């Protein structure tokens, strides 16, 4: 395909790749740094940030530190399995003093990693009331037998979880916009352009996207806005007015909706 604007096209590709990396990499590094700091404070040997993977309650390890961190990364936890699955679906923090080997889920993970999980603390990662993952601390620094995690440490972990959850939420949003950027670029390269044909292809991609409904809706909205913006100045103006009205409505209804929490 001959492209009359080759220079511009190349610049778009470079910018998109740069933005893609700039969006997510610093965030996972920040999550890892904060996790490392919190694990030191919790006197824990291993720690991990586990995030939702789709809408069915499945989870996956996003960031891990410790001896078997590399083996954990990307590993999936099926819906409701293990303490992470329970904490994610129930919202309740839990500590187990003596995980032991007969517990089916951890026995399976330990078998794959060669690790020996003995004591564990898991607390939910929440962002705006939504549970978006689980923060886990496993074992203690030093030699076994390990002291169990205390109620004080459970409270401390909840505070670390609040900070880490903000970063995880930013990561999830950035990753989706990165994926969207890559997809649009791919469509442009395939000749789809920014018109209706490219729009429907992106829509199809969105339908197949393995992400949560909330994030799919968010990115769907971004795609729609992009499509409207490409249609002309009148459409852009109307779209902006409607979106601003929605924002005003949301501000007023949110103040009502949350008033019951201010007891």
């Amino acid at each position, binding site marked *: 395909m001959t492209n009359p604007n080759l220079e511009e096209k190349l610049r778009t590709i470079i910018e998109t790749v740069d933005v893609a990396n700039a969006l997510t990499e610093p965030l996972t590094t920040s999550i890892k740094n904060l996790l490392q700091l919190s694990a030191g404070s919790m006197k824990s040997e291993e720690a991990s940030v586990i995030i939702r993977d789709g*809408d*069915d*309650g499945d989870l996956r390890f996003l960031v891990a530190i410790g001896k078997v961190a590399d083996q954990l990364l990307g590993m999936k936890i099926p*819906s*409701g*399995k*293990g*303490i992470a*699955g*329970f904490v994610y*679906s*129930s*919202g*309740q*923090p*839990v*500590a*187990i*003093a*003596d*995980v*032991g080997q*007969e*517990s*089916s889920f951890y026995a399976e993970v330990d078998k794959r990693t060669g690790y020996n999980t003995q004591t564990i603390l898991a*607390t*939910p990662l*929440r962002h705006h*009331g*939504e*549970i978006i993952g689980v923060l886990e601390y496993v074992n203690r620094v030093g030699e076994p037998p390990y002291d*169990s*995690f*205390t*109620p004080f440490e*459970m*409270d401390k972990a*909840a*505070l670390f979880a*609040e900070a880490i959850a903000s970063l995880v939420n930013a990561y999830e949003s950035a990753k989706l916009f990165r994926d969207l950027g890559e997809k649009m670029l791919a469509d442009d390269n395939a000749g789809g352009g920014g018109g209706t044909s490219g729009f429907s292809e992106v829509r199809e991609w969105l339908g197949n996207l393995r992400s949560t409904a909330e994030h799919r809706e968010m990115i769907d909205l971004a795609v729609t806005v992009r499509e409207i913006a490409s249609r002309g100045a009148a459409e852009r103006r109307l779209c902006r007015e409607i979106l601003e009205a929605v924002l005003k409505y949301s501000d007023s209804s949110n103040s009502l*909706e*949350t008033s*019951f*929490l201010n*007891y």
Partner: protein
Amino acid sequence: MELGSSSTSAAQDFHDIFGHVSLDESWKSRTGRGVNVAVIDSGIDTNHPLLQGKVVESVEAVAEHKRVLFAPSESGDSAGHGTACAGIISSIAPEAELYSIKVLGAGGAGDGQAFLAGLEYAIKRRIRLINLSLGTTKPQFFAPLHDLLDRAYQAGCIVVAAANNLPQPSFPSVFSSSLISVSKSEEADPFHFGFRYGEVIELTAPGVNVRTTWLNGGFRSLTGNSFACPHIVGIIALLLETYPTLTPFQVKSLLYSIARRNQES
């Protein structure tokens, strides 16, 4: 004593009036016989040696056309948590009849929806005592949960919920008027629970390194508010066996009275 306007003086006045309700100790030697207890959780391992014959019914949430239905369950416990709660209840009220309502790890419906359906199922079945070691912070569940808790209260179902131990409030544990909410203490004796009148989460019960039943016939030492909740459920099962017609309000008054006596002793 002069009536004050602060919550502290209100608590003191309340104590003066109801803190000395006369209650003999015979309820402590009961076993929970004939009391139905629902455990809305991750299921119960009915083959655990300490739980065999105690679970009279197991159902699990099944998503069908965006609705949540309940079908007989043979999948046991996917996480261990429900088995742990059942073991705690059973350690205090060994003859209570347990109903496992599995809403976690059953697949299908997402967070909140299955949990609400499980609570509705237990209320419709008129199960007398409901253990809810779960909660949600999603504002959209506030109204439906509030409605369900009111229905439970009117139906005479006693709902006991665990606080979430997190900075933000979770539902339904903050609905203090229509249910009994519990957080963990380091106390080891289940009969020595506490009552914090004027606090959002009123009851405290053992919840630190609690030794209880786990998957595959095992045992674990567990920490969390969700293990304090079944201790209070066990205590209420004993009270309900002793005084079968107690209303949710009366149960709370008794718990308050017993806790005051605990604190004085």
